């Protein structure tokens, strides 16, 4: 066993400013640190998951300026100055409809991929408010090892309908 001593490098760690779930945050991490690990280890938001580290599974999906990003392969440098939304930040937004639909359809099994699923679904609905099955199949490329895909699809359809009803109703809430 080797025990490390003090290092000069620690003094040179750069600082980044970003907005996470509406809150301004400052983090000091090495430039190559993936956004995933900033979110999980610097900011303590553990709802975003590590699955593969190579952007293959989507468990780490978050929004960067509204678009879905696989944060395990997205360096903090690229996120600097941007607005990040994670699963912990969606309850006060219109995407709460997705959480409600996920509960109504009882989507999760082990649940580990579901934060990323919901974030991917939110990005899809912001592009295509009433997606077809083909739209969902093209957009949702997250891996669920428990195989909840059929319920994911139904929940997205349900949330889309609910959001549509809200936004098109007279006096309905604005997004």
């Amino acid at each position, binding site marked *: 066993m080797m025990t490390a001593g003090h290092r000069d490098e620690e003094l040179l760690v750069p600082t980044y400013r970003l907005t996470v779930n509406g809150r301004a945050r400052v983090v000091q991490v090495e430039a190559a640190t993936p956004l995933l690990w900033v979110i999980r280890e610097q900011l303590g938001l553990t709802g975003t998951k590590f699955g593969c580290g190579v952007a293959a599974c989507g468990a780490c999906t978050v929004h960067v300026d509204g678009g879905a990003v696989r944060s395990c392969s997205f360096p903090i440098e690229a996120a600097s100055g941007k607005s990040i939304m994670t699963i912990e930040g969606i309850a006060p937004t219109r995407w709460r409809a997705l*959480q409600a639909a996920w509960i*109504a359809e009882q989507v999760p099994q082990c649940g580990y991929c579901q934060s990323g699923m919901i974030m991917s679904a939110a990005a899809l609905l912001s592009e295509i408010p009433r997606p077809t099955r083909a739209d969902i*199949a093209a957009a949702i490329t997250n891996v669920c*090892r428990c*195989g909840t895909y059929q*319920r994911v699809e139904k929940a997205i359809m349900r949330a889309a309908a609910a959001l549509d009803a809200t936004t098109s109703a007279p006096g309905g809430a604005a997004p």
Partner: protein
Amino acid sequence: MAPDCADRFAGCDGPELSRRRFIELIGHGSGALLLSASWPAWAAVVDGSGAARSGEAGLNAWVRVAPDETVTIVVSQAEIGQGISTTLPSLLADELGASWSSVRLVTAPYDPAYRNPRLNWMFTGNSESVQSFYDLMRAMGAAARDMLVRAAASHWRIDPQMCATSEGFVVERGSQRRISFGRIASAAAQLDPPRNPTLRADAELRWLGRAMPRVDVPAKVDGSAVFGIDYAVPGMLIAAVRTSPTVGGSLRSYDEAAARRSPGVKAVVAVPGGVAVVADTFWRARRALAVMKCEFEGGPNAALDSPALMAQFRARLEQGPFATPVQQGDALRKLAQGARTLTADYENPFLAHATMEPMNCTAHVTALRCEVWAPTQGQELAFFALKSALGLEDKQIAVNRTPYIGGGFGRRLIPDFIVQAALISRAVGAPVKTIWDREEDLRRDQFRPATLVRLRAALDGAGLLQALHARVVSPTILLPVFPGIAPVLRDQKIDPSALEGMTEWPYEVEHRRVDFHLMDVPIPTSVLRATGYGPNIFALESFIDEIAAAAGVDPLAYRQRLLAANPRALRVLERAAALAEWQKPRASGAGKGVAFAAAFGSLIAQVTDVAVSDGQVHVKRVVSVVDCGRVLDPLIAAAGIEGGVVFGLAGCKSEITFEQGRVVQDNLNRYVMPYLAESPELITEFVEGGGKLGGVGEVSPVTVAASLANAIYAASGERLRSMPLSRHGLTLGAWR
């Protein structure tokens, strides 16, 4: 874990059948309606801390009641996505007469009180939880109820027969008088527990057979669920691990100065086969691993290659030696004399578990104590493995299970990652969370082994099956999760789990023989969801199709003939055929395949619909009809069947291969799982056949490879005798 088939089948068609109610078949559509119409706002709460409430009175090992009316129920079984943390506690609470919104669920520590009562071992797996704990949960709920009732009756000075429980109160029958559980619990806890508590009549239970809201779902949609990888204890460091990419290799060297310079690194610790970096964050630990240039010795398996390995399997298939666990009639003589015989060899690939949450464990080990917090299915095995690795006494070891676990599939029965985390913590003298990256997780898996199955059949003049001879070549799957089986492996050369599906045989055939060769491989092999049933049923149910084709009989009709004396099985098969519109004419390039199995104490019939074009197999629909005796929760059970179909398809899409001792598919971009676009429409129904409770969690993957292969044959005329599809130049196609 050995199949208990004769016993399971004995009760199938008894006189009880007619007395049992049959619930309406729960289809995917009706299930959703049920849910949206009547979704209860109440739910039990999962308390990850598990801390005792003040003034809590323990009524038995499973139930505690606090003065604030909180009813704490212990969850003995690992929630790995199968919904067991809802199903079993709600059964207990129902029997008790508790209010579900007052229930708090805590995760069981390792304790013999929480062992599986049938197998006397604390674990979660083998689709055992409902089968094994149903009676115990009801008895524990009834016992606690009995104590509360007697305490209340004594307080009121009336006959306990005059009392009942409802929604968290003991009530006096025929009066308005009632007292809450919280007020009477401490008096109840002083009473002797009843020896034979009286159970409620099933009709009295409020939730049995109904869809309950899963207690684990809310925390899984807002990011608050704390999985093993999210677990934290004060002062905790994080470790990343790199062991030899080859199976059985070792660390040769690394650049220690580079590790030392890498930011955040606190220590570098040797682990068997490799090295762990302990740092303030996982990312920094993993970064250090990358810059310290670990080099490895290939070890004894540096030349291991899949083609050469499979050649060894084939040699054993030809030459044995074989044990003969099944011998009924004289299959070999019939085959020698048979008017018509058929032979086919089937091959199953190595598969990895690839749980979405990679292996990880938080451990705090000192000279006098070891405490771990692990996403595990196998607390008892972990306990003994830690005891042996650390040389501590029983009372110095605490094995806690994290309340949320990102998939199991059998991988988390094995305590290797827990012991490793404990050793790392001991080396640095601090609490450490060890996290495997995906590469480590796949390379250090203990794989579902490849198997070879040769099947030979003798048919009579009418094309019916007269004799069946199976040869199975398989490495062990049971040993790593059930070390007690070692003498059976050594003396009898039989792995009971690897024979599942071969010994539990639903069809009528007079002469049957099963030969088994326990293959010795240098690769660690273990159970994976569907265990021995998966590979064996792929072979058997493909072969039944081949026999039907040779006999010129429709594959469904052929199975109906073989099951003619088994009404419970016929009902399952025929319902699946009806739902799948078996008789409907099929378009060119489209086909339907059927498979049937008796597995994990349940019956399943599955019909898979495919279209094959340009090398793409579009799996459009999979109908599964299951008889698990009785359905405790129709939506949770349906979710298990649905998910299991996709899990089965994963084994038809990707495989694990070895090249120069290394796992080739060492991340999810190479071990590629089915995507939403490729996953079929799933139609799931249950038939309550009135037999004993059967398993649900592992039943549906069992038939997937065979029903798919049979459908591909129907669509294209190509017979697949091995998986995955890529071996035949086929891919799983998107179809939506």
